[in-house]
């Protein structure tokens, strides 16, 4: 069907979810009270703000991921032609991986891969 199938799929997904949520809205009469709207925290009202700065220890991962993901995108076209290009492709990728791996080792030595 080609690219138009993406439109079909998106419409289908939205329709499916929308109809399901609509049906459940129709099927019941919702009542509200104060307790019901509270966020769940094991039965104790939440104290303090949720949307605060918090230390996730994850931002460094995000940066390293970015480096690797860009590399991965580069690899896709390479992978398609690797077999036909022969040895030159292997040498190229070994050099590429070597540089990348050095960077990886550097990050590892710096402790960037430890969850803080």
């Amino acid at each position, binding site marked *: *069907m*080609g*690219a138009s*199938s*993406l439109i*079909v*799929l*998106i*419409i*289908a*997904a*939205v*329709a*499916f*979810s*929308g109809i399901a*949520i609509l*049906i*459940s809205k129709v*099927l*019941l009469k*919702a009542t*509200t009270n104060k307790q*019901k*709207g*509270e*966020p*769940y*925290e*094991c039965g104790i009202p*939440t104290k303090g703000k*949720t*949307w605060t700065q*918090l230390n*996730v220890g*994850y931002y460094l*991962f*995000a940066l390293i*991921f970015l480096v*690797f*993901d860009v590399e*991965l995108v580069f*690899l*896709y076209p390479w*992978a*398609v*032609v*690797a*077999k*036909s290009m*022969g*040895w030159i*492709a*292997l040498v190229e*990728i070994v050099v590429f991986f070597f540089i*990348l*791996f050095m960077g*990886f080792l550097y990050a590892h030595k710096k402790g960037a*891969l*430890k969850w803080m």
Partner: protein
Amino acid sequence: MWSFSGIANNIHTWLGEHFNATWTMIIEMVIAGVAVIGLFALLGLVLVIMERKVSAWMQIRLGPNRVGPKGIFQSLADTLKLLVKEGMTPDGADKLLFNVAPFIAMIVAMLLLAPIAFASNFQLWDLNIGVLYVSAVSSIMVISILMAGWASNNKYSLMGAMRSGAQIVSYELSAGLSVLAVVVMCGSLQMSEIIESQRNGWWIFKGHIPMLIAFITFIIAVTAETNRAPFDLAEAESELTAGFHTEYSGMKFALFFLAEYVNVFIVCAIGATLFLGGWMPLHIGNWEGFNHAMDYIPSSLWFFGKTFFLIFVIMWFRWTFPRLRIDQLLNLEWKYLLPISMINLLVVTAMAILGWHF
């Protein structure tokens, strides 16, 4: 012989005879849309009952056995229950993001269906960068989880979302690298060509041990990417009660739940396509008789059989292993899976160039 592609062709020619081109296209689109919705719903129902039965048998109990014969309608009953539950939005939540998140999860799951070949010549869109498309679209999933966790205004949700962000992002790398191993071998990103390259044997057999390693890293990585145990840290029920979907209820929760199961199906389908030959029947060397017998089994059965086997493996993981801790989870990726799959890719490249495969 009965096949999906035959049915599709028949419909296409019948429509071509009776309507003009525009109407044909529109009707075909509607049919396709209804079909994927049906597939979606059916997959949800089947996978949920399958999960419950698998877990029950592994846990020496019977599992659902009251609704319908042997309990096969249990998940239908569950769906009905979820339909009549109130899908409420907490007062403090970011209402827009909170309500949009399940839609995004569903759209991502749905979009991933496009390049999957369900049977021979039966595919929504055989785009020439099929593999890249899958890895590109599947990373949108993390956005819906982050949105859901952030918008809930719940501390557990927020932590679950942050965890899953780090997790999905990391495991994408080794999943991508192990997929590349197949791409290197057959030199194409198109799903149909990858399947075609396995006509004389599946990659998992043709590629010797490096391909097996690639397959195992792929399975581990996609288990983590779909947030399944033992990598279900985003939900981690004993730590974060329900993680990112703590505040979701009713149908909105059901959509997340459904998206998770359909994602499992999709990644298993991709795995089956890349490593196990998709809809290709099992052929062994030059055993003519055996190969002919295998050809009689419809291609769709081959595809679903392989996919459901992989789904079973992922369920098997879930009901056997304890959950990893968040730093161990990332250690596993960065210290084990990523180096292994990188070196493995080099070995595979060398093998492909030397022609050391069947």
